[in-house]
């Protein structure tokens, strides 16, 4: 299996091949159209955020009122997905600062969603910047979620955030004691570590308070609302996430070969904030989520045919991940226009 360690031996190989901070393929699109697509708005993101938070509060109230009955299961299922999965797209969009026009609104929702998504907010900004610089470049990209040859069981465990919470907790505890992880030191400037140390301590304090609350009231209920949803509500984010890059090429400078767009219905697009147009997002990260369908229409003739559904994408991906367990040279090829 390749060594996916960020800053590991593959990083030097990537640099030698000219894959680091390189120029990537871009489709042709006229500047006036692009300028219109990049335009920011507070209204659309405010509407979507209010709907998301209202749904979260309503499902939370129902979950609270039904605690102790079987009705709590569907209520917490909805609450958990809104908390543990929908937060991921909000963290992501506000991290790019494209969701709202207001930087303050982006930053506030970024921090709220990062907490719900269990991502230490400073290190993930830098991690994601690297992911956009060197997308699926082995040894450089810290966000290669589906590594060739990795056990499929690990992906299954990730539906319940087992691995991701373990690795994030390790980082948060190290940061809380003033130490970066080896990989973090590769993509995050030393001057930016203090922010990670601070937020790690804040996260530990909050989770410690929730545990104390549970002990005092002799119930797991407080943790069912804060903390545990990242386990029981994470699965939908993993389903969306697997469609982004899994099974596609590594070490290429063309997002059309390592990123996919998948058509989704309106409910999924709301939960995922249009990140199903993931290929378009990677090529043009300055385009806000609400303009991605228009961007897709503008450049579709220069991109591979998108998958028609999540199921259509997963049917392509899972067999390839299974084959990569035995033969890591297996890759999903893309037909380029």
């Amino acid at each position: 299996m390749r060594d996916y360690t960020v800053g590991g031996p593959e990083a030097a190989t990537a640099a030698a091949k000219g894959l680091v901070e390189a120029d990537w393929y871009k489709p042709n699109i006229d500047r006036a159209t692009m300028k219109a697509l990049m335009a920011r708005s507070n209204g659309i993101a405010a509407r979507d955020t209010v709907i998301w938070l209202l749904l979260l509060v309503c499902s939370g109230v129902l979950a609270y009122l039904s605690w102790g009955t079987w009705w709590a299961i569907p209520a917490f299922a909805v609450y958990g997905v809104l908390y543990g999965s929908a937060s991921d797209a909000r963290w992501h969009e506000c991290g790019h600062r494209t969701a709202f026009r207001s930087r303050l609104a982006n930053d506030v929702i970024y921090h709220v969603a990062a907490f719900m998504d269990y991502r230490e907010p400073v290190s993930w900004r830098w991690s994601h910047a690297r992911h956009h610089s060197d997308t699926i470049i082995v040894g450089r990209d810290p966000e290669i979620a589906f590594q060739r040859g990795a056990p499929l069981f690990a992906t299954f465990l990730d539906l319940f955030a087992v691995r991701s919470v373990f690795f994030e907790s390790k980082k948060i505890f190290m940061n809380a004691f003033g130490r970066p992880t080896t990989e973090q030191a590769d993509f995050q400037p030393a001057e930016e570590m203090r922010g990670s140390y601070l937020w790690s301590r804040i996260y530990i304090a909050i989770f410690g308070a929730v545990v104390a609350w549970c002990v005092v009231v002799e119930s797991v209920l407080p943790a069912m609302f804060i903390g545990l949803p990242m386990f029981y509500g994470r699965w939908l984010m993993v389903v969306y996430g697997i469609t982004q890059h899994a099974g596609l090429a590594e070490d290429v400078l063309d997002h059309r070969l390592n990123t996919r767009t998948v058509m989704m219905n309106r409910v999924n697009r709301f939960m995922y904030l249009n990140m199903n147009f993931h290929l378009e997002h990677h090529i043009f990260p300055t385009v806000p989520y609400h303009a991605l369908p228009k961007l897709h229409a503008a450049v579709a003739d220069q991109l591979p045919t998108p998958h028609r559904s999540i199921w259509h994408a997963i049917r392509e991906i899972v067999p390839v991940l299974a084959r990569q367990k035995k033969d890591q040279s297996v890759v999903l090829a893309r037909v380029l226009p």
Partner: protein
Amino acid sequence: MTESRWHQVGATDDVMRDDVIGVTVGETAVAIIRTADDRVFAVDAVCTHGRASLTEGFVDGTEIECPKHNGRFDVTTGDAIASPARVALRTFPCRVDNGCIEVQL
């Protein structure tokens, strides 16, 4: 040391309002920004964070956003104002003379 001088780099009509174009002066890639209120600014065209051309970026008031990582700079001062941008851009004196944009470099 070479003395700086004014260079004609194009007409104001070459740049839409609230937008940016790229020009090359000597060996220096320069981004020319025209704001919505019709002021022009000149800054280094390459982002100080990643190797991306700001000439493909997004202009919002007097800020320009890098097209690759969404870092932001104030084009009036060159200051980096949003991460991952941390290092200021070089700025160049810029003026409009009879519809022509001139940069001092």
